[in-house]
């Protein structure tokens, strides 16, 4: 795996293997000494043009636990916020000798530019680009789902998500998490239904490998066949109201918010995911977020193991396995 730019870069075999490696990584994280020597002497740069403490610390922890040298460039207070171009920053990283660049950027496609423009030789890992993709989020979601549906840590090793039904509800239009999840879950054999008000579905969504619906209750009740095994609520930004995507927070949460009543429509084994940070009371209610079906805290922990696996496969590859 030279770069990880899109969830579509991964074949079923690669994705399952990455999840399996993540299980091994997670197992090491139960030990007293969490650090592995796998990436000793390698340099991982976290290049964050957009604020995201959660994702940045998750990648930092992942790289450090693999013994990589970690350098973090954050937009705030660094040259990148003073108008330095992506190209100049990339050339600095090249001079530093970065082996992998984890990039978060507000512009869709910025990681593609880094990977394909010839500015750097390092591998590029997309940590969220604009409204395009966030492949490691999809990987950690798939990891969390596989554990939930296959019976816990390690139990699902070697398996995909064939037959699983997942409802993803929220602001699909602006969501990089939704795009990566649709692609990866489809690759892994799951059936995805996207649910959103029509204003928050992109024109052209009909070509995606998933179902699309606008009625959340019907989707949860299994209108497309069986009831879902998992629901993923996407973050909705309140500013969207000002651009007339929906009339009010109250109407949004009434029609598309995930709450206890809606979760009760699901089969007993079904789980709830959210990529965070949550807007409690808007797309998710407090009782849902903190309830027994919620895997939201687990997602955060799984993020480190999954990112360790991604960095390991990018930098150490199979020869170091």
């Amino acid at each position, binding site marked *: 795996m030279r770069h990880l730019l899109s969830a579509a870069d991964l074949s079923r075999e690669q994705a399952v293997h990455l999840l399996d490696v993540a299980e091994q990584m997670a197992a090491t994280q139960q030990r007293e000494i969490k650090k592995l020597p796998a990436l000793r002497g390698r340099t991982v740069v976290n290049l964050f043009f957009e604020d995201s403490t959660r994702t940045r610390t998750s990648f930092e922890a992942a790289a450090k636990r693999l013994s990589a040298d970690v350098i973090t460039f954050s937009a705030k207070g660094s040259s990148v916020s003073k108008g330095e171009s*992506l190209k100049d920053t990339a050339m600095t990283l090249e001079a530093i000798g970065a082996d992998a660049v984890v990039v978060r*950027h507000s512009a869709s*496609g910025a990681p*593609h530019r880094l990977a394909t423009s010839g500015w750097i030789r390092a591998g590029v890992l997309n940590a969220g680009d604009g409204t395009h*993709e966030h492949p490691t989020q999809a990987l950690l979601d798939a990891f969390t789902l596989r554990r939930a549906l296959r019976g816990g840590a390690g139990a699902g090793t070697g398996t995909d998500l064939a037959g699983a039904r997942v409802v993803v509800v929220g602001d699909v239009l602006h969501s990089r998490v939704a795009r990566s999840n649709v692609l990866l879950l489809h690759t892994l054999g799951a059936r995805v239904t996207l649910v959103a008000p029509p204003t928050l579905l992109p*024109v052209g969504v009909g070509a995606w490998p998933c179902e699309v619906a606008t009625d959340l209750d019907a989707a949860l009740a299994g209108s497309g066949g069986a009831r879902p095994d998992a629901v993923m609520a996407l973050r909705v930004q309140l500013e969207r109201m000002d651009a007339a995507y929906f009339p009010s927070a109250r109407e949004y949460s009434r029609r598309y918010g995930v709450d206890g009543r809606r979760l009760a429509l699901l089969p007993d084994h079904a789980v709830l995911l959210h990529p965070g940070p949550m807007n409690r009371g808007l797309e998710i209610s407090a009782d849902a977020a903190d309830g027994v079906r919620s895997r939201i805290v687990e997602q955060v922990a799984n993020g480190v193991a999954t990112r360790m696996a991604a960095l390991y496969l990018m930098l150490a590859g199979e020869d170091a396995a």
Partner: protein
Amino acid sequence: MTAAPDAPPTATVLQGVRPLGADPVDLVLDGGVVTEVAAPGSAARDGARVVDGRGLVALPGLVDLHTHLREPGREDAETVETGSRAAALGGFTAVHAMANTAPVADTAGVVEQVWRLGRAAGWTDVRPVGAVTVGLDGERLAELGAMADSAAAVRVFSDDGRCVHDAVLMRRALEYVRAFDGVVAQHAQEPRLTEGAQMHEGEVSAVLGLRGWPAVAEEAVIARDMLLADHVGSRLHVCHLSTAGSVELVRWGKARGIAVTAEVTPHHLLLTDELVRGYDPVYKVNPPLRTAADVEALREGVADGTIDVVATDHAPHAVEDKDCEWAAAAMGMTGLETALSVVVAALVEPGHLDWAGVARVMSAAPATIGRVEHQGRPLAVGEPANVVLVDPGARRVVEVAAHASRGRNSPFAGLELPGRVVATVLGGHPVVLDGALASPRPDAGRHPGGW
């Protein structure tokens, strides 16, 4: 009293050329006009420059209705001199220089400056376009009459780059320019529907997570403007049609008898939004690249005369304005040095146009719309000697490093394209010979009529 012209220009004989692809003839050019059309090999002149044109197609010099020369203001991207050289190499004997410079070409002073720079360069006729509104701000009419009456004799007015979206202002502009036979060339883009738009809104934008530029934002403005032009009895020119729906609307307008003309760019005739998948900003342009179905409809629109003109929308940019992430990149593509080849690939080879058709859409029609009287004329005795010779059988790989334009942002770089401009003759003076720049036309070599 009229001063006699200085030393008479040397006569030129274009031997064995095929006018509009017809049977070979010799064309004799003297004193800035065509003086003789003779059987091949029969025309000989003592002291005349002889160009071996056997196998070459002769067309009237091309006229670009839509060029961005960037001077004044962005001389790092292009100048009148470099853009004129690119025009000559592309076979253009006239280019309309768009008004979105800095300062904006919204006064007689600026359009005259550009016109003089073009005349001094001497590679092509530079016809300045005047802004419709002051500063392109869409609020007050610029002094359209002053620009029309200036030495630049402006006849085309456009806020290109921006849309004249205020319906009342557009109506007034359409009406006002009738006083001097002007035309408003509209960049049709509903601004609210395209805020922050990055590419065509459709299946590809959905996957790439780039803000969409919907077809309706172009089509709604075209429909409104045609109805306005009809209402006030003015002519309207629509810049760079990019959608199948726009073609359908213009077809409807023409059938209804509305005085509407339309243009399409070479890139919209050849490229689609699929190219955006790699996020390379060389494909970022406004209006955006559309779908294959749109490309097909645009080609058919040219073939059936719905679209009158192919115009380049040549938009050179400094390297750093394209060497960045997609959202930060400038919109636009160069086109002067590739336009004819793209037209051959997109329209001639598939059978949509013959060479007479190429002369119509790239020379006669744009000259008529822009009211450039000495351009776009037939290759006949007594007509102005603006000629381009094309090798129809040549194929070449587009090498941007070899372009005379300062812009390196050609979406055709690396493509093998048919057709090659071998010679360009401007007012009887060969500015391009053997596919390379020869010499600019000296001011002293002008026709007594001033052109």
